[in-house]
């Protein structure tokens, strides 16, 4: 368990195709927005080192494809997540309606020990777009987050770097809290078989 000393926070970003997951991640990590990011195929992640209350942590931000069918193969890395970010496009009501099922799917696949307390963060993206196109009001989004046990909610623009930094700060903080709560829990079932496996293999090399 010594590797735990170096804190790695695993964050999964979910949401419908085209809501801006890849753009948000790149805005946060690389501080830039490009209109020509390609649709994500498979999965990828970016890492970023950040200070959370004077502690240096590495955030590993996982980005997956938004089209539902591609989720079935990609769920392997939901496991061990410390925080899940749900993204929707404020100008697209369908992407908001699916948030709930993204959340459910995540909880099933990642199966955290305490689903009730597992940290989520909701981001309503593309707030830079003309107000006339807006489909989901802040109020409605906040009500949803409230009903799910008070999920933190941010309205962001990956394009114009609005609220991105602030949102990820909260994501990092909540992820760290989640990670630490697991460390104190010796019965965390997910890690036991995995570590045994690693030890066995370690000897044979």
């Amino acid at each position: 368990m010594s590797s735990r000393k170096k804190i790695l926070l695993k964050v999964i970003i979910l949401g419908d195709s085209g809501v801006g997951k890849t753009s948000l991640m790149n805005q946060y990590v690389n501080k830039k927005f490009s209109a020509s990011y390609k649709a994500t195929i498979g999965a990828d992640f970016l890492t970023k080192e950040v200070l959370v209350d004077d502690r240096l942590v590495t955030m590993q931000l996982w980005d997956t494809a938004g089209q539902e069918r591609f989720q079935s193969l990609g769920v392997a890395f939901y496991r061990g997540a410390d925080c899940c970010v749900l993204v929707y496009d404020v100008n697209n009501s369908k992407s908001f309606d699916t948030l709930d099922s993204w959340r459910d799917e995540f909880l099933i696949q990642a199966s955290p020990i305490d689903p009730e307390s597992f940290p989520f963060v909701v981001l309503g993206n593309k707030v830079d777009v003309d107000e006339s196109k807006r489909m989901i009001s802040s109020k409605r989004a906040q009500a949803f987050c409230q009903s799910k046990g008070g999920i933190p909610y941010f309205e962001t623009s990956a394009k114009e770097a609005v609220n991105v930094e602030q949102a990820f700060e909260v994501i990092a903080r909540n992820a760290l809290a989640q990670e630490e709560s697991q460390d104190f829990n010796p019965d965390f079932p997910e890690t036991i078989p995995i570590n045994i496996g690693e030890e066995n293999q370690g000897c044979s090399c």
Partner: protein
Amino acid sequence: MATPTSPAAQDAPAEPPSPPSPTASFYDMSDDEEGGYSTIRHSKTGKGVKLLYTKSKVYVHPSPSAKDNIPGYIALIQQKPGLERTVSATPQSSRIHAERNGLLLAWVPESSLGSASDIYTKVELADGDSPPKQSYLVPPPPITTAHSSSLGTYAFAIPLTEIFSILVRPPSVGWWFGSVIINTRAGDSFPALFFHDSECQSTIQQRKKLQRESLEISASGQGMFWGGDEVLRWLKRYVTVERSVQEPNIYLIEPSEADKLSFGSGGKPTSDNVRNVLEGKAKDHPSPSSRNKDAQMDPVMQALKSARWNFLEKMAQVTTFTRRTAQAVAENKNLPPQVRRLLQNPQVQTVSDEFDSARLYLARWAMGIAEQSEREKNQRMWTAKDVLDMEDSELGEFEIVDAEQMSLADKRKPVTLKEWNGFFNSRTGRLEKTPDEVKERIFHGGLNADDGVRKEAYLFLLGVYEWDSSEEERDAKMNSLRDEYIRLKGAWWERMVDEQGTLEEREWWKEQKMRIEKDVHRTDRHIPLFAGEDIPHPDPDSPFAESGTNVHMEQMKDMLLTYNEYNRDLGYVQGMSDLLAPIYAIEQDDAVAFWGFVHFMERMERNFLRDQSGMRLQLLTLDHLCQFLDPKLYDHLQKLDSTNFFFFFRMLLVWFKREFEFTDILRMWEGLWTDYLSSNFHLFLAMAILEKHRDVIIDHLKGFDEVLKYVNELSGTIDLPSTMIRAEALFRRFQRMVEAIDKKSNFPIPTVRQRLPQPPSESTTTRPGADGKPRQASQSSSESARRSANLAVIASGPGPGSSSSKAGASTSGRERTTGDAIAQGIGAEKEKVISPELRILLSKELPKLDKHEVREHGGGVGS
């Protein structure tokens, strides 16, 4: 090396004729009487040492460049001229003899010999089958027991008593020079000595003699006589030499009982103890568990027995190589005439007397070509460790391919429009070549990028046009296809305008339109064709209304929506825009490109099914392929929880579209569309990419995330031409291995048990091949909990049934058994089994889905 008809046996008339025995080992060779030897027992001066045997043109390769090679002599030298005969020493006493006799194995550079060089030449050319009758004294070389690393002084002379083992590598395809590496008891390795046999007078002489005396040189399949054989024969006269069973290239010198137990015969082969033997470290190892009673068996036979797999594979490799290359090579102008003649000899194509020489000629030729290349640096200063590492590398293989590639240089030129037009009858427009010929040309050469040949050729490759059609027929077909395109386009257009259909359907169409819109604006925008935003967006509600669009993006959207109409069972799925863009870029005509795309999609449909069963099957096949071709890499990936091969998902889904530049993609796809070697050749491309990086992956990557990141970041860095060549080489190797296994399976082998009882419910209620379940079942019984957990994740798609292809459907009954067998193979003893997934890779038949399967698993709205 163990040629049954050894020259020693031929030349020992004093011995009573022993009955010819197929199991005669090479120990026999050292048992001859040394008649005249005892007459030389005095030494005039105390200075010289006695040169017993020597061989010239033995080189040290200190640097990558052949220019730096240092020619020298390897020699067996006696320090104090012997006072006793050294005949028939028993293993227990021979070491003492060797000690008393002060025997040294030495290597001296030619340049250092001075006036002694005449003596060396004389001894070399003396009849090598018995020690010289005369005493030839030469200046003593410096005696060393450790390899000094000081540059320039490679000369050494090491007492036989100090040698722990010798690693012997006979020349082989790709390794023209045979080599030996001496490992000392202290744990040192001397630099590899390379035998340039074709320059060595004594070896040439001995070969000729052997050829005269025996017609069975290659009967053992072990290769032709070379310089290293001779050195072993010298040694066997004086000391016990025992071939390691675990590592047949290692010969132990005067092994202790413990050594024999560990490495001679019996004992568990692990890479560790092999490495220890190589490095001479293992002499004091405690013997492993109980002694194998097989130890009584002739060690050669035992080695052969355990090497049966290797041996069969080699045979298959060499015959295929010869057959395959013979023709291409025979036409090559750069080839020495004797090789050409040799290859024209039909006998070369069978395992014949000339078999070895043909092989070696080719190997040498390949070597010559490789000379300048940086790859050659691998020949420099080989140490034992390097050679062991090389065992796992692809090097030998690729030198062959290089040779072949050179010989195919003409065939690797792109097909021009002129050449293409020449394939067809000028009047009827009918193809006058066989489709296979054309496909072979395109597979190896590609199509010219600039002269417009792709525009027409793609329609053949994709199957829009029949290969045997006339021009007239093609024109008629295209006309009706254009009409059909317009009809389909009109159909969805009406849908949009009139809001037809159920609510569900209307929702689906709206969503699909949105999806296509977003994706087209994210597809290949860096290509000038798709870059512009010069026309206003037709739809003011589009998120792209502000930025504008261009005519080609609009056509892309039309074609994809038309496809959504054409194949409503599947509909548009992300990734398809990536598949369409190159075809459109070539055709630049929406109707033509659309039908090209439709045909491409027939092949790719399985990648986009809602339950992802087609992707699962391909990832599983890649899993089997890696396990089959590179078990060491596979083991590593397994430790990293990466054998789901998810990190290849992107490459397989859109055929490497995201990993290569647009121009490379065109070249690759036109090759893949030929199905020239396999309709799943893209999986060999994937393996080729993986293999290229396997050392980095094994040495440096320590987790699934690292592998994924590493592989994702290969994007834009992969060289296509060499990857295609590697892929072809891997395919050929795969094919050979399958052939060898099929041959081998004529031997009785233990039958593979089915370890998991088939749940009765499943066999009655589910069609064969449904879902990815077979995989889960096949693995879980014999692998670690982690792995099955991992697989369970992979296998747990949302939808239940998901048979994806004819292959999957027809074979999964056996899948369970063979998958299990493969799983069993993950251990020290690997029994190679060809799973149905693997066997399908030899097929060139296009993997198309049944319509009803798409309907069931497509995830569209249906008709």
